[in-house]
C-alpha cells in the first residue's frame, strides 16, 4: 500500500480531490452542508444561473427510470441578482473552489451573466450549459451546432478571464466536432456530459410522466455513454475534461479518470445517497492505494 494523493489542478485551479457535484444536483451547496463540510469536496458546482429569475417547468419534473431518472426542471433559478446577493456569498466562504453554471437564451444573456459573476469575484470557474435552446437561432440548442457554439464561446471568452468550461450535450452525432469548436473558441476545458434526451409514460393517465413531455436522462444507466464520450474527447482535444454521468462509486470515478478525465462530477448519486461524494472520495483513495497508484496523473488516460 502506497499513500495516494488525490489533489489535482484543473485549468489552473487547485482542488483537494477530483470530485465535485454536477450542476443542478447540489443546489447552492448549503442544502448538503448539513451532511458534511463542503471543503471535503474538490469543488462545488452551483446550479444554472440566468439573467432573470425563472420559475422552471410545471410538475411532475422528475421520473424514475430503470437505472436512472429523468428531469425537466427547466433552469429554475432565482436569477443573477439574487444569486449574487443570496447564494454565492455564502458559498464563496466555504474554503472550496466555486464553479458557476451559466445558461441563457441568447449570446447576450450568457455574456451578461458570465461577466457579472466574474466581476463579483465569487467564482473560480465558469461552466457554460449549452443544452439550452437558442431563441435567436430557431430554438436549436447552443451545443448542437458547431458554428453557433463557436460564436457563443468566443463571445463569452471576451468578457471573462476566469477558466471557462463548456458542458457538452450527448445528444449530437459527433461530440468531437463540438468539442473542437469550443476549444478553438477559447474554452479552457470541457465537461462531458449533460443528460440524454428521454421520456417516460404514465400508462394509467395515458400521457408522459413529466409535465414537460421530454426530460433529461441521468444516473447509472447513462454511464457507458458518458465514458465513451470522455474517451472520444480525450483523443480529440488537449484540454482538461470533467467526466460526468452515472458516477456512483469510487471505481466509477476511476473509470472516468482512466478514460481521460481530469476530474469528475456527481449528480444523481447525491439523491440516492446524500453522502455519495465523501464516500466516492474515500473509495477512490482506497482503490488507488490498493492498486499502487500514487496520484491521479498516474492513472489519467490509462486505457488509451
Amino acid at each position: 500500500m502506497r499513500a495516494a494523493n488525490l489533489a489535482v489542478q484543473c485549468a489552473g485551479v487547485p482542488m483537494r480531490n477530483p470530485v465535485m457535484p454536477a450542476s443542478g444536483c447540489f443546489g447552492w451547496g448549503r442544502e448538503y452542508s448539513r451532511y458534511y463540510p463542503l471543503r471535503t469536496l474538490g469543488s462545488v458546482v452551483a446550479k444554472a444561473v440566468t439573467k432573470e429569475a425563472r420559475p422552471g417547468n410545471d410538475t411532475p419534473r422528475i421520473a424514475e427510470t430503470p437505472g436512472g431518472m429523468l428531469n425537466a426542471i427547466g433552469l429554475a433559478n432565482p436569477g443573477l441578482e439574487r444569486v449574487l446577493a443570496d447564494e454565492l456569498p455564502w458559498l464563496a466562504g466555504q474554503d472550496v473552489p466555486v464553479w458557476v453554471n451559466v445558461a441563457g437564451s441568447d449570446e447576450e444573456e450568457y455574456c451578461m451573466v458570465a461577466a457579472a459573476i466574474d466581476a463579483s469575484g465569487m467564482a473560480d470557474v465558469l461552466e457554460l450549459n449549452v443544452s439550452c435552446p437558442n431563441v435567436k437561432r430557431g430554438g436549436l440548442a447552443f451545443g448542437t451546432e458547431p458554428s453557433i457554439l463557436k460564436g457563443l464561446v468566443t463571445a463569452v471568452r471576451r468578457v471573462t478571464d476566469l477558466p471557462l468550461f463548456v458542458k457538452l450535450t450527448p445528444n449530437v452525432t459527433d461530440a468531437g466536432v463540438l468539442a473542437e469548436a469550443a476549444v478553438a473558441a477559447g474554452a479552457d476545458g470541457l465537461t462531458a456530459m449533460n443528460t440524454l434526451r428521454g421520456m417516460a409514460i404514465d400508462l394509467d393517465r395515458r400521457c408522459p410522466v413529466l409535465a414537460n413531455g421530454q426530460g433529461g436522462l441521468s444516473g447509472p444507466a447513462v454511464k457507458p455513454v458518458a465514458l465513451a464520450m470522455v474517451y472520444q474527447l480525450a483523443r480529440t482535444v488537449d484540454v482538461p475534461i470533467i467526466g460526468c454521468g452515472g458516477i456512483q462509486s469510487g471505481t466509477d470515478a476511476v473509470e472516468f479518470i482512466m478514460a481521460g478525465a481530469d476530474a469528475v462530477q456527481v449528480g444523481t448519486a447525491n439523491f440516492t445517497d446524500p453522502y455519495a461524494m465523501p464516500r466516492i472520495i474515500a473509495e477512490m483513495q482506497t482503490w488507488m492505494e490498493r492498486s499502487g497508484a500514487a496520484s491521479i496523473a498516474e492513472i489519467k488516460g490509462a486505457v488509451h
Partner: protein
Amino acid sequence: MELKVLSKNEVATGVWEMTLGGDFSYETVQPGQFIHVQVGDGITHVLRRPISIADVSVSAGNLTILFRMAGRGTRWLSQARIGDNLSVMGPLGRGFPMTQAKTALLVGGGIGIPPLYLLARRLAEQGKAVTTLLGWASAEDRFWLPAFERLGHVEISTEDGSLGMRGTAVDALAVLENLPDTIYACGPRPMLAALKRWALRHGKRGWFSMEERMACGVGACGGCVCRTEGGMETVCSDGPVFALDEVML
C-alpha cells in the same frame, strides 16, 4: 442513517405499517415531517421514497410509518424483513405548525391520513378538541380508525358508501355541527382544492400537506416544487406543509 425494521403489519390490503428503530432525531419530529427511504440497491431505484412519519416514540426510540404499495418502490419496501436495515434520511421538511387555536379539524383522504395521526396525538395532548374527517375508497381500505377515535370525534366517508357516509372526506364537512378554529389536511389534490374553497368561504385558516415527486428531498434539485402565492416553493424543504391560503391548487 440506518434504521432497523422492528415490526411490519399489513393493516389493510396493500397498506403496511412499519416501525423503525435506531439512531434518529426522534425528539425533533414535527407532525407532517417525512423520512426519505432508500429502496433497492441504487440501480433498480436511484430515487428514495418520501414517507410521512405517522407516529414517533421518543422514549422507545422508534417511529412508525404507514404506506400503500403504490408501485415498485413501495413494493420493495413492503418486502423488507424484520431486522433488515433501511437507509433513511430525516426528519425532513416543515411540519404542521401548532397554533393557539382551541379546536382543530383534521381532514385526511386515503394515504394522506398517516401524517394526521401524530398531529392528532400532539393536538390532543395539548388539550385541543380534535375532529377528524377520514375518507377511504371502501370500508376494507380503512386503517388506524380506533387510534384516531381515541383522540377525538371522527367522521368517516367512503366512496362506495360501505362505511360512514358516501363520498370523500370533504363531503363530511356538511355534517359538522361547529366550525373549527383551524384546519389541517392531507390527501388527493381535488380533495384539498374543495377544502380550500370551503375554508376560504368560511374564513378559516389552516395547513395542507402536499405531495410531489422528489429526488433530493432537501431542497437542492428543484424537482418537487409547488406553486404558492409567493412563487415556486419546494415541497421537500419549504413544505410539505403550506398555509391553505398560500398554496395554489
